[in-house]
Protein backbone atom coordinates (compact mmCIF):
# COMPACT_ATOMS: atom_id res chain seq x y z
CA UNK A 1 0.00 0.00 0.00
CA UNK A 2 1.06 3.54 -0.64
CA UNK A 3 0.17 6.73 1.18
CA UNK A 4 1.19 10.36 0.74
CA UNK A 5 0.01 12.60 3.55
CA UNK A 6 0.46 16.28 2.80
CA UNK A 7 -0.93 17.38 6.13
CA UNK A 8 -3.00 16.21 9.06
CA UNK A 9 -4.18 18.60 11.76
CA UNK A 10 -6.34 18.45 14.85
CA UNK A 11 -7.96 21.84 15.22
CA UNK A 12 -5.16 24.28 14.38
CA UNK A 13 -2.43 21.82 15.41
CA UNK A 14 -0.58 20.26 12.51
CA UNK A 15 0.38 16.75 13.61
CA UNK A 16 1.69 15.11 10.44
CA UNK A 17 3.34 16.73 7.42
CA UNK A 18 4.69 15.41 4.12
CA UNK A 19 4.74 11.74 4.96
CA UNK A 20 5.16 9.39 2.01
CA UNK A 21 5.19 5.75 2.76
CA UNK A 22 5.04 2.58 0.72
CA UNK A 23 4.57 -0.76 2.40
CA UNK A 24 5.97 -3.55 0.23
CA UNK A 25 3.83 -6.67 0.05
CA UNK A 26 4.77 -9.11 2.79
CA UNK A 27 7.08 -6.68 4.60
CA UNK A 28 7.25 -6.19 8.37
CA UNK A 29 7.65 -2.52 9.22
CA UNK A 30 7.90 -1.16 12.72
CA UNK A 31 6.93 2.44 13.43
CA UNK A 32 8.32 4.11 16.52
CA UNK A 33 8.81 7.61 17.87
CA UNK A 34 8.22 9.78 20.92
CA UNK A 35 4.90 9.60 22.71
CA UNK A 36 2.29 11.87 21.21
CA UNK A 37 4.13 12.38 17.91
CA UNK A 38 1.30 10.97 15.80
CA UNK A 39 1.87 7.23 15.35
CA UNK A 40 -1.68 6.22 16.18
CA UNK A 41 -2.94 9.11 14.08
CA UNK A 42 -0.96 7.77 11.11
CA UNK A 43 -2.29 4.24 11.62
CA UNK A 44 -5.87 5.50 11.81
CA UNK A 45 -5.40 7.38 8.55
CA UNK A 46 -4.10 4.24 6.85
CA UNK A 47 -7.04 2.25 8.25
CA UNK A 48 -9.57 4.75 6.93
CA UNK A 49 -10.80 5.46 10.47
CA UNK A 50 -9.68 9.07 10.10
CA UNK A 51 -10.68 10.70 6.83
CA UNK A 52 -10.05 14.32 7.79
CA UNK A 53 -6.61 14.88 6.22
CA UNK A 54 -4.99 16.07 3.00
CA UNK A 55 -3.22 13.67 0.69
CA UNK A 56 -3.94 10.41 -1.04
CA UNK A 57 -3.81 6.74 -0.36
CA UNK A 58 -4.02 3.57 -2.42
CA UNK A 59 -4.05 -0.16 -1.77
CA UNK A 60 -5.81 0.22 1.57
CA UNK A 61 -8.62 -2.19 0.73
CA UNK A 62 -7.98 -5.38 2.56
CA UNK A 63 -7.05 -4.22 6.04
CA UNK A 64 -6.99 -5.57 9.52
CA UNK A 65 -6.16 -3.63 12.67
CA UNK A 66 -4.95 -4.95 15.98
CA UNK A 67 -6.00 -2.26 18.43
CA UNK A 68 -4.06 -1.53 21.58
CA UNK A 69 -7.08 -2.64 23.62
CA UNK A 70 -8.35 -5.83 21.99
CA UNK A 71 -11.79 -4.31 21.25
CA UNK A 72 -13.70 -7.58 21.40
CA UNK A 73 -17.47 -7.45 21.81
CA UNK A 74 -17.92 -8.33 25.51
CA UNK A 75 -21.43 -9.73 24.91
CA UNK A 76 -20.43 -12.16 22.17
CA UNK A 77 -18.34 -15.27 22.68
CA UNK A 78 -14.93 -15.61 21.04
CA UNK A 79 -16.17 -17.63 18.10
CA UNK A 80 -18.83 -15.04 17.26
CA UNK A 81 -16.36 -12.21 17.73
CA UNK A 82 -14.16 -13.66 15.03
CA UNK A 83 -16.95 -14.98 12.85
CA UNK A 84 -18.56 -11.53 12.62
CA UNK A 85 -15.36 -10.09 11.16
CA UNK A 86 -14.17 -13.01 9.07
CA UNK A 87 -17.10 -15.06 7.82
CA UNK A 88 -20.43 -13.44 8.73
CA UNK A 89 -22.34 -15.90 6.54
CA UNK A 90 -20.36 -18.99 7.53
CA UNK A 91 -20.79 -21.51 10.29
CA UNK A 92 -17.66 -20.61 12.18
CA UNK A 93 -15.30 -23.25 10.88
CA UNK A 94 -12.77 -20.65 9.77
CA UNK A 95 -13.20 -18.69 12.96
CA UNK A 96 -12.62 -21.82 15.03
CA UNK A 97 -9.50 -22.57 13.00
CA UNK A 98 -8.26 -19.02 13.58
CA UNK A 99 -8.75 -19.44 17.33
CA UNK A 100 -6.83 -22.69 17.21
CA UNK A 101 -3.85 -21.06 15.48
CA UNK A 102 -3.46 -18.68 18.41
CA UNK A 103 -3.81 -21.47 20.97
CA UNK A 104 -7.39 -20.68 21.98
CA UNK A 105 -9.13 -23.90 20.99
CA UNK A 106 -11.66 -24.80 23.64
CA UNK A 107 -12.43 -21.12 24.26
CA UNK A 108 -14.96 -20.72 21.43
CA UNK A 109 -17.83 -20.24 23.91
CA UNK A 110 -15.91 -18.04 26.35
CA UNK A 111 -16.95 -14.42 26.75
CA UNK A 112 -14.06 -11.93 26.45
CA UNK A 113 -14.55 -10.74 30.04
CA UNK A 114 -13.41 -14.14 31.31
CA UNK A 115 -10.05 -13.99 29.50
CA UNK A 116 -6.67 -12.78 30.67
CA UNK A 117 -5.22 -9.80 28.80
CA UNK A 118 -2.81 -12.10 27.00
CA UNK A 119 -5.63 -14.32 25.79
CA UNK A 120 -7.74 -11.37 24.74
CA UNK A 121 -4.78 -10.03 22.74
CA UNK A 122 -4.43 -13.40 21.07
CA UNK A 123 -8.12 -13.36 20.19
CA UNK A 124 -7.66 -9.89 18.70
CA UNK A 125 -4.77 -11.22 16.63
CA UNK A 126 -6.83 -14.23 15.55
CA UNK A 127 -9.60 -11.94 14.38
CA UNK A 128 -7.19 -9.74 12.44
CA UNK A 129 -5.58 -12.67 10.66
CA UNK A 130 -8.86 -14.51 10.07
CA UNK A 131 -9.86 -11.84 7.57
CA UNK A 132 -6.70 -12.75 5.59
CA UNK A 133 -5.62 -9.13 5.30
CA UNK A 134 -3.22 -7.73 2.73
CA UNK A 135 -2.23 -5.07 5.25
CA UNK A 136 -2.09 -5.62 9.01
CA UNK A 137 -1.84 -2.55 11.23
CA UNK A 138 -0.92 -3.09 14.88
CA UNK A 139 -0.87 -0.41 17.57
CA UNK A 140 1.34 -1.36 20.52
CA UNK A 141 -0.03 -4.90 20.47
CA UNK A 142 2.11 -6.28 23.31
CA UNK A 143 1.98 -3.59 25.99
CA UNK A 144 0.72 -4.37 29.50
CA UNK A 145 1.67 -8.03 29.16
CA UNK A 146 4.37 -9.60 31.26
CA UNK A 147 7.61 -10.29 29.39
CA UNK A 148 6.93 -14.02 28.99
CA UNK A 149 3.45 -13.51 27.55
CA UNK A 150 4.68 -10.67 25.33
CA UNK A 151 7.52 -12.86 24.07
CA UNK A 152 5.15 -15.70 23.19
CA UNK A 153 2.81 -13.36 21.41
CA UNK A 154 5.71 -11.86 19.41
CA UNK A 155 6.72 -15.33 18.26
CA UNK A 156 3.14 -16.14 17.39
CA UNK A 157 2.77 -12.88 15.46
CA UNK A 158 5.92 -13.59 13.43
CA UNK A 159 4.81 -17.18 12.75
CA UNK A 160 1.42 -16.11 11.49
CA UNK A 161 2.93 -13.25 9.51
CA UNK A 162 5.21 -15.78 7.74
CA UNK A 163 2.22 -17.96 6.90
CA UNK A 164 -0.25 -15.33 5.76
CA UNK A 165 2.25 -12.69 4.63
CA UNK A 166 0.35 -9.44 5.03
CA UNK A 167 2.36 -6.22 4.96
CA UNK A 168 2.62 -5.38 8.63
CA UNK A 169 2.92 -1.91 10.08
CA UNK A 170 3.36 -2.18 13.82
CA UNK A 171 3.69 0.68 16.30
CA UNK A 172 5.83 0.13 19.38
CA UNK A 173 7.82 2.01 21.98
CA UNK A 174 9.86 -1.07 22.74
CA UNK A 175 13.02 -0.67 20.66
CA UNK A 176 14.32 -4.17 21.44
CA UNK A 177 11.02 -5.47 20.10
CA UNK A 178 11.53 -3.36 16.98
CA UNK A 179 15.05 -4.68 16.56
CA UNK A 180 13.97 -8.29 16.97
CA UNK A 181 10.91 -8.24 14.71
CA UNK A 182 11.23 -5.65 11.95
CA UNK A 183 12.72 -5.80 8.54
CA UNK A 184 12.26 -2.04 8.38
CA UNK A 185 12.06 0.56 11.13
CA UNK A 186 10.51 3.99 10.67
CA UNK A 187 11.06 6.71 13.23
CA UNK A 188 8.39 9.38 13.38
CA UNK A 189 9.28 12.57 15.17
CA UNK A 190 8.86 16.34 15.45
CA UNK A 191 5.82 18.59 15.42
CA UNK A 192 4.47 18.38 12.81
CA UNK A 193 5.93 14.89 12.66
CA UNK A 194 7.91 13.67 9.68
CA UNK A 195 9.67 10.38 9.03
CA UNK A 196 12.96 11.15 10.72
CA UNK A 197 14.61 7.83 9.96
CA UNK A 198 13.90 4.88 7.67
CA UNK A 199 16.15 1.89 8.39
CA UNK A 200 16.34 -1.52 6.74
CA UNK A 201 17.31 -4.54 8.77
CA UNK A 202 18.78 -7.18 6.51
CA UNK A 203 20.00 -9.46 9.25
CA UNK A 204 17.93 -12.68 9.38
CA UNK A 205 15.81 -12.87 12.51
CA UNK A 206 17.39 -16.09 13.73
CA UNK A 207 20.76 -14.36 13.83
CA UNK A 208 19.50 -11.45 15.92
CA UNK A 209 20.87 -12.62 19.26
CA UNK A 210 20.38 -10.62 22.41
CA UNK A 211 23.72 -8.84 22.05
CA UNK A 212 22.88 -7.65 18.56
CA UNK A 213 19.36 -6.61 19.59
CA UNK A 214 20.76 -4.62 22.52
CA UNK A 215 23.27 -2.94 20.27
CA UNK A 216 20.77 -2.08 17.55
CA UNK A 217 18.08 -0.87 19.91
CA UNK A 218 20.68 1.30 21.66
CA UNK A 219 21.46 3.03 18.39
CA UNK A 220 17.77 3.28 17.63
CA UNK A 221 17.24 4.93 21.00
CA UNK A 222 19.72 7.66 20.07
CA UNK A 223 17.91 8.20 16.80
CA UNK A 224 14.50 8.44 18.44
CA UNK A 225 15.95 10.67 21.13
CA UNK A 226 17.55 13.07 18.64
CA UNK A 227 14.74 12.80 16.18
CA UNK A 228 17.46 12.85 13.54
CA UNK A 229 18.71 10.49 10.88
CA UNK A 230 21.86 8.71 12.04
CA UNK A 231 25.00 9.60 10.10
CA UNK A 232 25.32 6.16 8.53
CA UNK A 233 22.14 4.11 8.82
CA UNK A 234 23.69 1.34 6.74
CA UNK A 235 26.17 0.57 9.51
CA UNK A 236 23.43 -0.32 11.98
Amino acid at each position, binding site marked *: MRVAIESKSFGGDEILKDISLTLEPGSFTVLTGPSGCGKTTLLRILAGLDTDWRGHIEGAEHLAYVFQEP*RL*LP*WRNLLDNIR*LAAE*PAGHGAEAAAALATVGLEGYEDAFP*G*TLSMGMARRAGLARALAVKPAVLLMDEPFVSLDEAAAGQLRELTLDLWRKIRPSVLMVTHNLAEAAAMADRVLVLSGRPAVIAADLSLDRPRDRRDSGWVRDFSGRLRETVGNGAVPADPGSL
Partner: protein
Amino acid sequence: MPGLVTVPASLLALVLLWALLAVFTDPEILPPPLAVLALAAEEWHSGDLLFHLGATLGRVLTAFILAMAIGAAIGIALGLSGKANRAFDPWLIVALNIPALVTIVLCYLWFGLTEVAAIAAVAVNKIPNVAVTLREGARALDRELAEMARLYRFGPAATLRHVILPQLAPFMTAAARSGIALIWKIVLVVELLGRSNGVGFQIHLYFQLFDIGRIFVYAIAFILVMQAVELGILQPWERHASRWRRV
Protein backbone atom coordinates in the same frame (compact mmCIF):
# COMPACT_ATOMS: atom_id res chain seq x y z
CA MET B 1 -31.54 -16.35 47.59
CA PRO B 2 -32.67 -14.63 50.79
CA GLY B 3 -35.28 -12.72 48.74
CA LEU B 4 -37.36 -15.86 48.39
CA VAL B 5 -37.79 -16.12 52.13
CA THR B 6 -38.58 -12.51 52.92
CA VAL B 7 -40.84 -11.48 50.03
CA PRO B 8 -43.62 -14.05 50.63
CA ALA B 9 -43.32 -13.56 54.39
CA SER B 10 -43.62 -9.82 53.97
CA LEU B 11 -46.65 -10.16 51.67
CA LEU B 12 -48.27 -12.62 54.06
CA ALA B 13 -47.83 -10.10 56.86
CA LEU B 14 -49.58 -7.51 54.71
CA VAL B 15 -52.56 -9.84 54.16
CA LEU B 16 -52.68 -10.62 57.88
CA LEU B 17 -52.68 -6.91 58.69
CA TRP B 18 -55.52 -6.45 56.21
CA ALA B 19 -57.45 -9.34 57.83
CA LEU B 20 -56.88 -7.86 61.26
CA LEU B 21 -58.06 -4.39 60.22
CA ALA B 22 -61.10 -5.96 58.54
CA VAL B 23 -62.13 -7.54 61.85
CA PHE B 24 -62.64 -4.07 63.30
CA THR B 25 -64.16 -2.51 60.19
CA ASP B 26 -67.49 -2.62 58.48
CA PRO B 27 -67.10 -5.34 55.74
CA GLU B 28 -68.74 -2.89 53.29
CA ILE B 29 -65.79 -0.54 53.80
CA LEU B 30 -62.96 -3.06 54.12
CA PRO B 31 -63.97 -6.60 53.13
CA PRO B 32 -61.77 -9.32 54.66
CA PRO B 33 -59.33 -11.21 52.41
CA LEU B 34 -61.38 -14.41 52.29
CA ALA B 35 -64.50 -12.54 51.22
CA VAL B 36 -62.52 -10.92 48.41
CA LEU B 37 -61.24 -14.33 47.39
CA ALA B 38 -64.82 -15.64 47.20
CA LEU B 39 -65.84 -12.67 45.04
CA ALA B 40 -62.83 -13.31 42.82
CA ALA B 41 -63.97 -16.91 42.32
CA GLU B 42 -67.42 -15.61 41.36
CA GLU B 43 -66.01 -13.14 38.85
CA TRP B 44 -63.75 -15.84 37.48
CA HIS B 45 -66.59 -18.32 36.96
CA SER B 46 -68.80 -15.76 35.28
CA GLY B 47 -65.92 -15.10 32.84
CA ASP B 48 -65.94 -11.37 33.63
CA LEU B 49 -62.57 -11.32 35.35
CA LEU B 50 -60.74 -12.95 32.46
CA PHE B 51 -62.56 -10.86 29.85
CA HIS B 52 -61.73 -7.53 31.46
CA LEU B 53 -58.20 -8.51 32.41
CA GLY B 54 -57.64 -9.59 28.82
CA ALA B 55 -58.98 -6.30 27.44
CA THR B 56 -56.71 -4.29 29.73
CA LEU B 57 -53.67 -6.45 29.13
CA GLY B 58 -54.16 -6.11 25.37
CA ARG B 59 -54.16 -2.33 25.69
CA VAL B 60 -51.17 -2.35 27.99
CA LEU B 61 -49.12 -4.48 25.60
CA THR B 62 -50.09 -2.55 22.46
CA ALA B 63 -49.37 0.82 24.07
CA PHE B 64 -46.16 -0.55 25.56
CA ILE B 65 -44.81 -1.83 22.26
CA LEU B 66 -45.72 1.41 20.49
CA ALA B 67 -44.19 3.57 23.19
CA MET B 68 -40.99 1.52 23.32
CA ALA B 69 -40.51 1.50 19.54
CA ILE B 70 -41.27 5.18 18.95
CA GLY B 71 -39.57 6.38 22.13
CA ALA B 72 -36.44 4.33 21.38
CA ALA B 73 -36.24 5.67 17.83
CA ILE B 74 -36.56 9.27 19.03
CA GLY B 75 -34.16 8.78 21.95
CA ILE B 76 -31.48 7.11 19.85
CA ALA B 77 -31.72 9.79 17.18
CA LEU B 78 -31.35 12.52 19.81
CA GLY B 79 -28.51 10.69 21.55
CA LEU B 80 -26.53 10.29 18.34
CA SER B 81 -27.00 13.81 16.99
CA GLY B 82 -26.01 16.72 19.19
CA LYS B 83 -27.75 19.09 16.78
CA ALA B 84 -31.07 17.25 16.88
CA ASN B 85 -30.80 17.04 20.64
CA ARG B 86 -30.27 20.78 21.05
CA ALA B 87 -33.21 21.46 18.75
CA PHE B 88 -35.67 19.05 20.34
CA ASP B 89 -34.61 18.78 23.97
CA PRO B 90 -37.04 21.57 25.01
CA TRP B 91 -39.87 19.72 23.23
CA LEU B 92 -39.03 16.65 25.24
CA ILE B 93 -39.12 18.60 28.48
CA VAL B 94 -42.54 20.00 27.56
CA ALA B 95 -43.77 16.52 26.67
CA LEU B 96 -42.49 15.07 29.94
CA ASN B 97 -44.48 17.64 31.86
CA ILE B 98 -47.87 17.24 30.18
CA PRO B 99 -50.15 15.58 32.73
CA ALA B 100 -51.41 12.17 31.64
CA LEU B 101 -55.00 13.29 32.10
CA VAL B 102 -54.56 16.13 29.59
CA THR B 103 -53.26 13.79 26.89
CA ILE B 104 -56.08 11.34 27.50
CA VAL B 105 -58.82 13.96 27.39
CA LEU B 106 -57.36 15.61 24.27
CA CYS B 107 -57.00 12.26 22.48
CA TYR B 108 -60.63 11.41 23.21
CA LEU B 109 -61.77 14.85 22.09
CA TRP B 110 -59.72 14.77 18.90
CA PHE B 111 -60.17 11.14 17.87
CA GLY B 112 -63.42 10.21 19.61
CA LEU B 113 -64.01 7.56 22.25
CA THR B 114 -62.22 4.89 20.24
CA GLU B 115 -59.73 2.12 20.89
CA VAL B 116 -57.14 3.96 18.77
CA ALA B 117 -57.54 7.14 20.81
CA ALA B 118 -57.23 5.16 24.05
CA ILE B 119 -54.04 3.38 23.04
CA ALA B 120 -52.53 6.50 21.46
CA ALA B 121 -53.17 8.45 24.65
CA VAL B 122 -51.34 5.87 26.73
CA ALA B 123 -48.42 5.52 24.32
CA VAL B 124 -47.99 9.28 24.00
CA ASN B 125 -47.75 9.52 27.77
CA LYS B 126 -44.89 7.07 27.89
CA ILE B 127 -42.90 8.00 24.76
CA PRO B 128 -40.98 10.93 26.35
CA ASN B 129 -39.74 8.77 29.24
CA VAL B 130 -38.53 6.04 26.89
CA ALA B 131 -36.86 8.66 24.69
CA VAL B 132 -34.99 10.21 27.61
CA THR B 133 -33.73 6.83 28.83
CA LEU B 134 -32.62 5.64 25.40
CA ARG B 135 -30.98 9.00 24.71
CA GLU B 136 -28.63 8.30 27.60
CA GLY B 137 -28.00 4.85 26.16
CA ALA B 138 -27.16 6.21 22.73
CA ARG B 139 -24.83 8.80 24.24
CA ALA B 140 -22.95 6.07 26.07
CA LEU B 141 -22.35 3.95 22.94
CA ASP B 142 -18.76 2.79 22.67
CA ARG B 143 -16.95 4.58 19.82
CA GLU B 144 -14.08 2.13 19.84
CA LEU B 145 -16.34 -0.82 19.18
CA ALA B 146 -18.13 1.16 16.48
CA GLU B 147 -14.77 1.76 14.79
CA MET B 148 -13.90 -1.90 15.07
CA ALA B 149 -17.20 -2.83 13.41
CA ARG B 150 -16.55 -0.32 10.63
CA LEU B 151 -13.01 -1.55 10.09
CA TYR B 152 -14.05 -5.18 9.86
CA ARG B 153 -16.99 -4.29 7.60
CA PHE B 154 -19.78 -5.64 9.75
CA GLY B 155 -22.38 -3.76 7.69
CA PRO B 156 -25.37 -1.90 9.14
CA ALA B 157 -27.51 -4.91 10.09
CA ALA B 158 -24.80 -6.81 11.98
CA THR B 159 -23.54 -3.60 13.58
CA LEU B 160 -27.02 -2.88 14.89
CA ARG B 161 -27.60 -6.41 16.13
CA HIS B 162 -24.20 -7.28 17.56
CA VAL B 163 -22.68 -3.93 18.51
CA ILE B 164 -25.40 -1.36 19.19
CA LEU B 165 -28.41 -3.22 20.57
CA PRO B 166 -26.45 -5.15 23.23
CA GLN B 167 -25.22 -1.81 24.57
CA LEU B 168 -28.73 -0.41 24.58
CA ALA B 169 -30.22 -3.50 26.26
CA PRO B 170 -29.81 -2.25 29.85
CA PHE B 171 -31.45 1.04 28.90
CA MET B 172 -34.24 -0.82 27.12
CA THR B 173 -34.84 -2.87 30.25
CA ALA B 174 -34.89 0.21 32.43
CA ALA B 175 -37.35 1.90 30.08
CA ALA B 176 -39.46 -1.26 29.85
CA ARG B 177 -39.57 -1.69 33.58
CA SER B 178 -40.64 1.86 34.42
CA GLY B 179 -42.75 1.89 31.25
CA ILE B 180 -44.92 -1.07 32.06
CA ALA B 181 -45.49 0.23 35.59
CA LEU B 182 -46.60 3.63 34.32
CA ILE B 183 -48.61 2.33 31.38
CA TRP B 184 -50.85 -0.03 33.25
CA LYS B 185 -51.84 2.70 35.64
CA ILE B 186 -52.65 5.09 32.81
CA VAL B 187 -54.58 2.41 30.94
CA LEU B 188 -56.97 2.12 33.88
CA VAL B 189 -57.65 5.88 33.71
CA VAL B 190 -58.19 5.69 29.95
CA GLU B 191 -60.67 2.85 30.45
CA LEU B 192 -62.45 4.68 33.21
CA LEU B 193 -62.90 7.76 31.04
CA GLY B 194 -63.85 6.30 27.71
CA ARG B 195 -64.01 2.53 27.28
CA SER B 196 -66.74 0.01 28.01
CA ASN B 197 -64.53 -2.87 29.10
CA GLY B 198 -61.28 -3.46 30.93
CA VAL B 199 -60.21 -3.35 34.55
CA GLY B 200 -60.52 0.44 34.71
CA PHE B 201 -64.09 0.24 33.40
CA GLN B 202 -64.99 -2.42 36.00
CA ILE B 203 -63.46 -0.41 38.81
CA HIS B 204 -65.45 2.60 37.72
CA LEU B 205 -68.61 0.49 37.56
CA TYR B 206 -68.15 -0.90 41.07
CA PHE B 207 -67.22 2.56 42.31
CA GLN B 208 -70.67 3.71 41.26
CA LEU B 209 -72.21 0.61 42.88
CA PHE B 210 -70.10 1.17 46.00
CA ASP B 211 -68.86 -2.44 45.73
CA ILE B 212 -65.47 -2.20 47.41
CA GLY B 213 -64.98 -5.97 47.42
CA ARG B 214 -65.07 -6.21 43.63
CA ILE B 215 -62.84 -3.14 43.29
CA PHE B 216 -60.32 -5.11 45.37
CA VAL B 217 -60.78 -8.16 43.14
CA TYR B 218 -59.94 -6.28 39.94
CA ALA B 219 -57.14 -4.22 41.44
CA ILE B 220 -55.39 -7.20 43.03
CA ALA B 221 -55.88 -9.41 39.98
CA PHE B 222 -54.23 -6.84 37.80
CA ILE B 223 -51.36 -6.29 40.21
CA LEU B 224 -50.76 -10.03 40.11
CA VAL B 225 -50.82 -10.11 36.32
CA MET B 226 -48.31 -7.27 36.09
CA GLN B 227 -46.04 -8.94 38.62
CA ALA B 228 -46.21 -12.11 36.55
CA VAL B 229 -45.13 -10.09 33.50
CA GLU B 230 -42.20 -8.68 35.49
CA LEU B 231 -41.09 -12.03 36.89
CA GLY B 232 -41.96 -14.19 33.90
CA ILE B 233 -40.86 -11.97 31.01
CA LEU B 234 -38.83 -8.91 32.00
CA GLN B 235 -36.50 -10.52 34.51
CA PRO B 236 -35.67 -13.64 32.47
CA TRP B 237 -35.02 -11.46 29.44
CA GLU B 238 -32.74 -9.23 31.46
CA ARG B 239 -30.83 -12.25 32.74
CA HIS B 240 -30.46 -13.51 29.20
CA ALA B 241 -29.27 -10.15 27.87
CA SER B 242 -26.69 -9.75 30.63
CA ARG B 243 -25.42 -13.33 30.78
CA TRP B 244 -22.04 -12.24 29.41
CA ARG B 245 -21.47 -10.17 32.55
CA ARG B 246 -21.49 -13.26 34.73
CA VAL B 247 -17.84 -14.21 34.94
